[in-house]
């Protein structure tokens, strides 16, 4: 199901969607169709979002022909492992090699069940990825990081986070205050920090304990 909502801000549009659909924010995917930044003097912005609910997730993604086949023993073993895990989870799919980089191996899952395999905020995908990394470490002595993706979730999440970082940066710049973002994993936090690095008058720092810390974005003015 795809529906469009409009609001003065992204948040307002999303809140409207939450109310109209009776769903939690985590249960649907949001795509920004149109975003007019609020003007400098008259603060009127307009944001149109498109909401994807359930299995429609990623329907409009361009469908490429999938990844490449595994090449060496290591890749074969790892691809088999992930395929077996998702199969035994009850969500079978095809696993292929998305990319090979130095010390990095990208695997992609193509499955009819990618929604549940990704999970809320990528929780399930992260869990399978963590186990795949431990297994990869046991299969080879080389230092390889495995990155698991489905439906381009990681790319989309990255884009969303960069957008969130910029938006929050603008907000604290205007309010000259600070804003605490939702808990994120180290990779996601780094993305927020680096995105806002080039804003001179805005700073970021992580707060909290453990793997999932929160980033605070705050205004610090220009010291010059």
């Amino acid at each position, binding site marked *: 199901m795809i529906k469009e909502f409009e609001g003065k801000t992204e948040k307002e549009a999303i809140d409207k969607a939450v109310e109209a659909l009776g769903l939690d924010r985590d249960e649907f995917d949001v795509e920004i169709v149109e975003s007019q930044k609020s003007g400098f003097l008259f603060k009127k912005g307009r944001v149109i979002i498109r909401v994807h609910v359930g299995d429609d997730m990623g329907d409009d993604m361009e469908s490429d022909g999938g990844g490449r086949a595994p090449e060496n023993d290591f890749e074969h073993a790892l691809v088999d492992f992930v395929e077996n895990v998702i199969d035994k*989870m009850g969500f079978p799919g095809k696993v292929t090699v998305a990319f090979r980089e130095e010390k990095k191996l990208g695997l992609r899952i193509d499955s009819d069940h990618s929604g*549940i395999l990704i999970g809320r905020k990528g929780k399930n995908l992260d*869990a399978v990825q*963590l186990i795949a990394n431990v*297994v990869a470490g046991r299969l080879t002595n080389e230092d390889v990081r495995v990155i698991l993706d489905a439906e381009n979730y990681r790319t989309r999440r990255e884009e969303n986070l960069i957008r969130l970082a910029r938006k929050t940066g603008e907000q604290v710049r205007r309010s000259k205050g600070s804003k605490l973002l939702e808990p994120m994993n180290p990779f996601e936090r780094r993305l927020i920090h680096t995105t806002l690095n080039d804003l001179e008058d805005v700073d970021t720092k992580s707060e909290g304990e453990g793997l999932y810390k929160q980033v605070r974005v705050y205004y610090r003015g220009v010291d010059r």
Partner: protein
Amino acid sequence: MEKELVTYIAKALVDEPDGVEVNLIEGEKSTILELKVSSSDVGKVIGKHGRIAKAVRTILSAAATKSGKRVVLEILD
């Protein structure tokens, strides 16, 4: 099915796959899976700060959404 899943993952993580044993205790609303591994392998299925155990539990609860039953993983030592 969940038993098979845990067994498969555990065997991939340990040094002694033959030492992996999973017992299933079926309750009314939840299923308890008892995972037993060789004592030298316990750390391998738990991980630093319980990260591996946590990931396995996440995978299990995702798998359990199909049956709608809660699955609890207990690691015996």
